[in-house]
């Protein structure tokens, strides 16, 4: 049976799960650079990423912390599927500022992030995942679409596990809710109800 084995969440107020020693340090709110440094990761490319990729990268770090490494075969068949509302609009606006007619210096390093699916690639590179990577856009969080899509990825037969996420960046806010889904003995059964309940716990009930 497909289950949601683990999940992570990041918003301007909260990050979950955090190791106990970081909870006090993050109590004042989530700054992505600060969160990156507190996780003691050595991955300098992080600082070149746009906000969407940073957010997805960090959510995937929190999601997979403590997971057994070295299962190369299983990682070859782990997929990443992300959803959001604004695609890469924040990166689009940042790039468009470099092509103003009066001040035309197009930035290739900003341009490469003007595709929402880059975040799925960043996660795949970091964790050496050679499964499917996909990005879908919908007007709001849609648990039914996400669960349908994940079930269909498993039905296609090439994936052992799937990282599935809602990951949205707006000028004054951001939110990542990421789940690790597979045929596991542990975790919550995969369903739209359970996915809705989990994200509501974070959004409304503030359970961390």
């Amino acid at each position: 049976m497909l289950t949601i084995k683990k999940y992570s969440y990041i918003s301007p107020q909260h990050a979950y799960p955090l190791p106990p020693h970081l909870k006090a340090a993050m109590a004042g709110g989530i700054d992505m650079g600060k969160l990156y440094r507190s996780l003691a990761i050595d991955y300098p490319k992080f600082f070149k990423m746009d906000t969407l990729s940073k957010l997805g990268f960090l959510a995937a770090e929190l999601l997979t912390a403590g997971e057994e490494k070295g299962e190369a075969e299983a990682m070859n068949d782990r997929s990443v599927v992300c959803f959001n509302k604004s695609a890469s609009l924040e990166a689009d606006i940042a790039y468009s500022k470099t092509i103003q007619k009066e001040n035309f210096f197009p930035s290739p390093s900003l341009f490469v992030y003007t595709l929402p699916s880059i975040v799925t690639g960043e996660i795949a590179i970091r964790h050496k995942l050679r499964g499917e990577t996909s990005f879908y856009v919908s007007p709001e969080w849609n648990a039914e679409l996400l669960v349908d899509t994940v079930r269909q990825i498993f039905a296609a037969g090439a994936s052992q596990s799937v990282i599935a996420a809602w990951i949205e960046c707006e000028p004054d806010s951001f939110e990542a809710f990421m789940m690790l889904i597979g045929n596991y003995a542990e975790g919550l059964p995969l369903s739209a109800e359970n996915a809705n309940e989990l994200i509501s716990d974070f959004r409304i009930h503030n359970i961390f």
Partner: protein
Amino acid sequence: MISWIGDSIVSPSGFTSAENYEAAKARRSAIAPHAGDGLAEPYHAAVINKEALAAAFEQRCGSPAGLTPLEQAAILSVAQATEGTGINPASPKVLFVFSSTKGNIHLLDAEADSYDRNKLYLWHTASLIARRFGNPNEPVVVSNACISGACAQIAAMRMIEAGRYEWAVVTGADMASRFVVSGFQSLKALADGQCRPFDANRAGLNLGEAAATIIYGKAKGKAESAKSISLRAGSIRNDANHISGPSRTAEGAFLALNDILKHADKKDIAFVCSHGTATPYNDRMETIALQRAGLDRIPTNSLKGSFGHTLGAAGTLESIISKWALTEGLALGTCGFEEPAQDCALPVAAHNIASGGSCFVKMLSGFGGSNAALLFAKSEED
């Protein structure tokens, strides 16, 4: 597996599938020089004449007022593709699937208060198209870099196979905006003249504009499928290597080919329609993938020399052209290919060749390390 029911292409080569197929078959190219207003340099691209598009739209669909060229092209392609299929696009059993990398991104060039800001959202564009045909479902919107048009077809296949819908209207659309052209210029990825896929002198890609729609339905029973073509399998795989460069070992493209080859006998494959952007890296990577998958003795072509790289439309547009070619028993020649490249040891089709196989493979690769492969097949009785 899902059955192919109808199709339509709107591109600078023509506003119907038939015109576009004839252009590709004649190895005509729509790629032309453009001045590059508001850009650092001129560029070559396949650009739709917007006045001609608006006129064609008006004739078929009514007033184009308030619709962007991308929306006009997408709606026109859907209207033409559904025509004569007997499928009612307003039915709740029909799912609209939309594929685009940048949608209406050209609007970022306009004054902020001069347009509806919702038009910057891909889901808004997709809803506008679906609503235009009275469809009640929320469209599925794929934005997966340059493989989007393949992913949209795979999404349609999965939704139909899962029994969620009976039919899918799959549309890919993108335009060569100043945003996109300047970005590819800044990456030094554009060719100085016309692109030359798999050629010894290949030196970059050309961008292209298009909207291309395919209508799919549930796999038909054997009796009714005498002449139909099916999308039999599709796979998406990541290189896990680099966000803007392909893997040196073609890892993702090879894995995607490997996945779909479980559903075909290699001897039945008539041709491979590669991504074939004509950048040095892409074409070499695809060569390695085809060699590793054991497909390097099957004719390979690229359609980029005719249409340019149409980004989110490439997957649907090039599948349509290839489907028409398979139906006619041809592997189309590669516009722009003259001198074989040493690092692309493949039987690249320079001219149209007769081909008796019953299947073709479509490959795509994109930024973010993404790769896709699709397997199309004639029904078994053919």
